[in-house]
């Protein structure tokens, strides 16, 4: 079916989330809806799925105007939505989860006709090569398969228009590839797909048309065959952005962080880090690449004092930190950008100002002898907000109401608000949009150029290649190779990440 939105406008208190947005997607085509966080993508899709009512504007399906009073009306009209956060009951099996709310019933008591539902699900799963076991429990399925269950749910409800909201955010690269395969088989049978994302590569790969949103408006559209990443990025951000922040050659100085034979156990007491030797010098960025779950998290936690080490030596400068607390490590001038900012880096219900001083609150000028100087706190936070261009109504705003990029800027601003000799950054740009990624990279490179040693852990090869002066690959708790930034490519890093060992400089 052909989908068309015409002049959709939606006003929230203080924000024009959608300003006369018009988009169209033809039958069997993929419309890529690209935009930064806060551009209005999700609002637009919530209007399309009947969760919000537009203040003005029309929705046409196959040329016929539709008004969606509620999500049921949208589903009835054939619009299926796959949300970023899945809505599945963990203890249900696939058949139950898919049929929930749209059960086929039979008999005088309206008994759930499981066999009929199962047959249909098997048929759909085969037709679109979703390869979902209908009898598997949801909780036993990996994230990628849960997403397919969500897609099945939409198809089961006869959706001809499928809206995918940031579908790759939770997927591994190979799962994303498989998702693209599914999208292709869906469009081949006439399903229209709206693919919402902020990732440039993905729209270029999968979309037939691209519409870029910026600040609630259509910033432009592009043909994926002729456009470039750079062009799309510029449209998204509204200025010329640098996808790869330029940096001069590293100027390594003395060793700041030194790890020797470090062994760390994870929460299940398995050896997660199994003898890591690594040195990071002042003025260089060492990036640790690797598939999630190869010990990177535990290694970072050990360095910053959050996890006991089993064996080995760790020093920062000439200080041993094997037994140091997070506070002691931090006092040595270590900035830590944690992997999961929502859980570890920020306190969502506290204000921007309070989050800005979260690990420096006990120092002057913010407090003296245990008493806060509230003016100093506010002034300090206001300076951080200004320096890092954090978009917030005020420093008293709760951190939870900021966008992901701005939350991360609060974390980075805080960590860089005091002089640092070592930066430990885990997934510093996960889930951020292009503009924010550029900004965070720039700030990290600034720290390097000021002489700090930088250790970045990332699962994104693009990030590792963009910022790393040296790239260490971690696999199964060990560093399986260290390449210079110049020698590293997607291919040789990918091989190392898969467990192959080769080449010069491969460390023990």
């Amino acid at each position, binding site marked *: 079916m052909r989908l068309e939105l015409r002049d959709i406008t939606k006003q929230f208190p203080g924000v024009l989330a959608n300003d006369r947005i018009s988009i169209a997607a033809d039958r069997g085509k993929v419309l890529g809806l690209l935009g930064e966080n806060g551009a209005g993508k999700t609002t637009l899709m919530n209007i399309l799925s009947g969760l919000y009512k537009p203040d003005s504007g029309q929705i046409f399906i196959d040329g016929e105007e539709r008004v969606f009073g509620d999500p049921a009306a949208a589903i009835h009209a054939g619009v299926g939505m796959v949300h970023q956060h899945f809505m599945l009951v963990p203890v249900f099996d696939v058949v139950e989860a898919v049929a929930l709310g749209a059960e086929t019933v039979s008999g005088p008591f309206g008994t759930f006709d499981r066999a009929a539902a199962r047959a249909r699900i098997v048929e759909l799963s085969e037709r679109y090569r979703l390869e979902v076991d209908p009898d598997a429990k949801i909780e036993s399925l990996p994230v990628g398969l849960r997403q397919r269950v969500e897609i099945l749910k939409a198809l089961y409800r006869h959706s001809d228009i499928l809206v995918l909201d940031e579908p790759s955010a939770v997927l591994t690269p190979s799962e994303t590839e498989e998702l693209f395969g599914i999208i292709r088989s869906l469009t081949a049978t006439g399903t229209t797909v709206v693919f919402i994302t902020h990732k440039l590569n993905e729209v270029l790969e999968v979309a037939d048309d691209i519409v870029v949103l910026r600040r609630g408006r259509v910033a432009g559209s592009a043909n994926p065959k002729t456009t470039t990443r750079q062009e799309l990025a510029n449209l998204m951000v509204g200025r010329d952005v640098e996808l790869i922040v330029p940096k001069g050659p590293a100027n390594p100085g003395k060793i700041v962080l030194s790890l020797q034979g470090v062994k760390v156990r994870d929460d299940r007491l398995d050896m997660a880090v199994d003898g890591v030797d690594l040195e990071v010098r002042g003025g260089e960025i060492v990036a640790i690449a690797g598939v999630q779950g190869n010990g990177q998290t535990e290694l970072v936690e050990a360095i910053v*004092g959050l996890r006991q080490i089993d064996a080995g030596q760790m020093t920062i400068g000439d200080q041993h930190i094997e037994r140091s607390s997070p506070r002691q490590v931090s006092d040595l001038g270590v900035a830590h950008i944690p992997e999961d900012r929502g859980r570890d880096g920020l306190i969502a219900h506290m204000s921007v100002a309070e989050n800005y001083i979260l690990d420096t609150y006990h120092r002057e000028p913010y407090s003296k002898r245990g008493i806060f100087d509230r003016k100093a706190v506010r002034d300090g936070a206001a300076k951080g907000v200004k320096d890092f261009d954090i978009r917030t109504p005020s420093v008293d705003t709760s951190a939870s109401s900021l966008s992901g990029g701005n939350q991360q800027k609060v974390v980075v601003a805080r960590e860089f608000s005091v002089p640092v000799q070592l930066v430990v950054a885990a997934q510093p740009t996960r889930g951020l949009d292009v503009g924010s990624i550029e900004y965070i990279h720039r700030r990290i490179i600034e720290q390097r150029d000021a002489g700090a040693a930088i250790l970045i852990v990332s699962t994104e090869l693009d990030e590792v290649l963009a910022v790393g002066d040296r790239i260490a690959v971690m696999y199964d708790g060990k560093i399986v190779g260290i390449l210079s930034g110049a020698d590293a490519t997607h291919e040789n890093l990918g091989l190392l990440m898969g467990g192959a060992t080769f080449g010069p400089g491969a460390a023990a």
Partner: protein
Amino acid sequence: MSRTKRVLRAARVPILAVVTALLIGAILIILTDFDNLSRLGTDPVGAVLALIGGVVSGYGAMLTGAFGDPARILAAISSGSANDIATAIRPITETLVAATPLIFAGLGVAISFRGGMFNIGGDGQLILGALAATIVAIVLAGQVPPFIILVVSIIAATIAGGVWGFFPGFLKARTGAHEVITTIMLNYIAALVVYFALRSPEIRAAGSTSPVSKSLGPIVDVPTIIPLPGIRLDYGFVVALLMAVAVSALLFRTTKGFELRAAGFNLTAARYAGMSAGGSMMLAMALSGALAGMGGGFMVIGTVGQLSLDLSGGIGFTAIALALLAGLRPSGVVVAALLFGAMTNGGKLMGIQSGIPFDLLGFIMALVIMFVAAPGLIRSIWRIKVDKPAPELAVSVQPTASE
């Protein structure tokens, strides 16, 4: 948004919760007024008026019982008779007397909740504080001036309550034992400790068959604020207000309070920021218990003057409700405690004058708590729009650094 506006906005749900509970209470008063209900068929107008009149006189009596009769207060003051004035203002002073231990215990609960600890043990901490104060008073009786006895016994009460609160905090921090379980159990232990102590002939009232302590009045008393006969309101109330200020300052002006709140909101982030999560738990629980214990001390030395097993009367639990009603704000705790004090105190006169059972108050208070716990219910009843910000805000506002 201005400060007053913010406060009003925050107070909207609690206020409406109270109003709604009172309205439902009114319906219950009407539905149990069988005499007038049975007249509905024969004399509908008269019956309806009488039903409404019943509610008005019942709630009116509660108001008078809680705050006194203004005309009578004015008349008494102009007459100048100490006895008249005392009688006229007694309702309002008794409301403050009832509110005082609630403020102490409510502040305690607020602190523990702020620190992420669910302190159900207010009752035990309060009564153990009262026991400590009683023992100190009896031991020191006649040896040092009463004022010294007062100070030492209140300090002892505070420490005893604090220790009793610290235990579960320590157990949680060190072993992960859940504080809800441990504090509930420690309530029983505290009650039994008091029972045991009251068997001692040194403490027990001479010749009494029931487990109550000697009367402490002859040994020590908290000075009253208004020197009129029969007015029990003492400086414990003033100390309670000072504690509210102190708790507020601790939570929002000190680094310890910051650590406590940070740990309460998000334990892992607090650890990442280098704070001692266990330390915050123990501190929150110790302070919480100390406040409850101090309240127990002032009760037993001041207004009650005698330790008994039912001294607390569930204050530790009521405190949980009012701390939630107060949104865990110290100033809110004072207001909520005054409200609960007024309802308890005024409810007695309502019972006497209008024949509406005192139990109705328990009903209304329970409704208040339920509504506060379910803000969505209140919002839907009163059609309050939630002005939460739009998802994915595209705001670009310059930072404001103005106070």
